[in-house]
């Protein structure tokens, strides 16, 4: 069976890989968008926190015997807690200043986290075994679908949509959106805005860590796993614009698929295709696909 001169297995295989990458783009850009909406800070440490998530899952399994499912719950909580501490101690001191300082601070934090992990674990990857429940796969006739990969796509979709629902449909989400619009007024209504900001940062960081745990069995766990990914995610964020939560999710998955298809048709361009799309979007619609014109 052939399609456009490319074997169907290859095409669907790349499509699946694209969806997997898209799952991570979506999760990470969602976290970035949530944090940016509330704090007006681009969290450069997002990639490092994703890497921390993967590492903590690995450490939990190898040092403490915590299995994958507990890691899914515990690791985001732990990393989210470090996020809360970082926000209280450092980021909260920068709100009066230019937004760029937040970017510089979190960049410094990313360097620290990455450097520490590289010191103790070197640059090579550590394997994380797929939980037994999810090993194996389905033969769909036209391709082989590993169970774990299917689970990652589903889990990512569920988490993304749950986040979107929480922000759009719950009371807390309403406070959050209101505080994004007008923090002073919301504070005047007796809502503790600084606490809301802290929790938002913690939540965004926890999302990054969750993505890290999901990624651990697919990509090998290594200290630089987040640093290259985060730059692609930045491009995703620029393409989608950070005005909309749903926009971040759609752009993330969409660009993952585009990247996967590029790998199938023209592999040389697969690492740059997202940046090329970003250039085109900047020319045509500078505010981003879902962004509001500033």
């Amino acid at each position, binding site marked *: 069976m052939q399609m456009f001169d490319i074997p169907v297995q290859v095409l669907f295989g790349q499509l699946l890989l694209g969806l997997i990458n898209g799952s991570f783009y979506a999760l990470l850009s969602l976290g970035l968008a949530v944090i*940016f909406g*509330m*704090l*007006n800070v*681009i969290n450069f440490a997002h990639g490092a926190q994703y890497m921390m998530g993967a590492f903590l899952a690995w450490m939990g399994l190898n040092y403490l015997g915590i299995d994958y499912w507990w890691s899914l719950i515990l690791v985001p909580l732990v990393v989210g807690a470090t996020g809360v501490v970082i926000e209280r101690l*450092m980021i909260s*001191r*920068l*709100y*009066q*200043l*230019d*937004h*760029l*300082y937040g*970017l*510089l*601070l979190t*960049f*410094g*934090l*990313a*360097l*620290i*986290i*990455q*450097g*520490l992990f*590289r*010191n103790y674990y070197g640059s090579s990857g550590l394997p994380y075994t797929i939980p037994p429940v999810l090993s194996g796969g389905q033969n769909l006739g036209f391709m082989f679908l590993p169970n774990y990969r299917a689970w990652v796509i589903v889990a990512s979709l569920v988490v993304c949509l749950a986040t979107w629902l929480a922000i759009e449909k719950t009371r807390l989400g309403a406070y959050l959106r209101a*505080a*994004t619009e007008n*923090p*002073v007024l919301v504070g005047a209504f007796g809502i503790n*805005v*600084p606490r809301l*900001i802290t929790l938002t940062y913690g939540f965004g960081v926890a999302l990054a860590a969750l993505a890290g745990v999901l990624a651990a069995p697919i990509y090998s766990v290594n200290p630089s796993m987040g*640093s*290259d990914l985060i*730059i*692609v995610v*930045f*491009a995703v*964020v*620029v393409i989608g614009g950070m005005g909309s939560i749903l926009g971040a999710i759609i752009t993330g998955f969409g660009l993952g698929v585009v990247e996967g298809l590029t790998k199938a048709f023209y592999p*040389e361009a697969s*690492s*740059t295709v997202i*940046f*090329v799309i*970003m*250039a085109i979007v*900047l*020319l045509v619609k*500078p505010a981003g696909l879902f962004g509001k014109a*500033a």
Partner: protein
Amino acid sequence: MVARTQTDALIEPSANIGTSRTYPYLFAGLFVVLCIAPFGLYPVFLMNVLCFALFASALNLLLGYNGLLSFGHAAFFGTASYVSAYAAKEWQLTPELAILSGTAAACVLGAIIGALSIRRQGIYFAMVTLAFAQMVYFVALQAPFTGGENGIQAVPRGRLFGLFDLTNDLALYFVVLAIVFFGLVAIFRIIHSPFGQVLKAIRDNESRAISLGYRVNRYKLAVFVLSATLAGLAGATKAIVFQLASLTDAHWSMSGEVVLMTLLGGMGTIFGPFVGATVLVAIQNYFAGFGSWVTVIQGVIFVIAVLAFREGIVGVVSRWIKKPL
């Protein structure tokens, strides 16, 4: 979003207004010190400092005087060093021509990336430049003429104007000193020209500059291209000094490093980037044996500089002696 003060500027608008008559003396003093330095210190280390001083000063032209944070300046530094190395090795050009071709390449790339990047502002601008620089990095990784992971090695230093042999470190040092000093003085002149005054006006209050009739985007693009070209000059020179162009020069961590140099020395000061570059290159040099701790130290300096030391070293000194530096 917490309640903000009205000024959203990176730098106090009151800083660095007007020229000070001490500048010519400071430049002359620096030049004399740098002429004596290679007889006491290792020339190759000093050349490294000089190249990064020019690189950081070029970034500072954009960041300190126009308020645009480019997180992708490694693209220009790296591209120029590749082109310069390639020209010297494959085309057998003399070093000054190789450096010029590298600089020209950075200028063209700066025009392309700049034209796209200035369409977004503030924090988005930083992300866009970072993403484009990563794209350049991937191209450098895959292109046939860059040598992939190995880079371009064994670049000949050649003969300046076909006459002076530059294999001697000391001879090369004075050539690099001349190039870097030319770059620093050029940046100083740009900042203290009417054009530079407009740049500062845009930095301090963009909407007002627009309402006064300045075509802000043209100014931004012009300063972006100038900054990219000078960053390229630094990269092209470095390739000849170390006889090597590698992926390190084009990686995003290089972009971060040069931002740190500028921040640490003092954004929006003339000599700040020079001081910041000296400190960081010295740290890298003396801590080279500690592996990843260098990254950690850089990160810690970043955090401290942002939280407690935003004026930078030269900025603080400048405040003490009440003179712009």
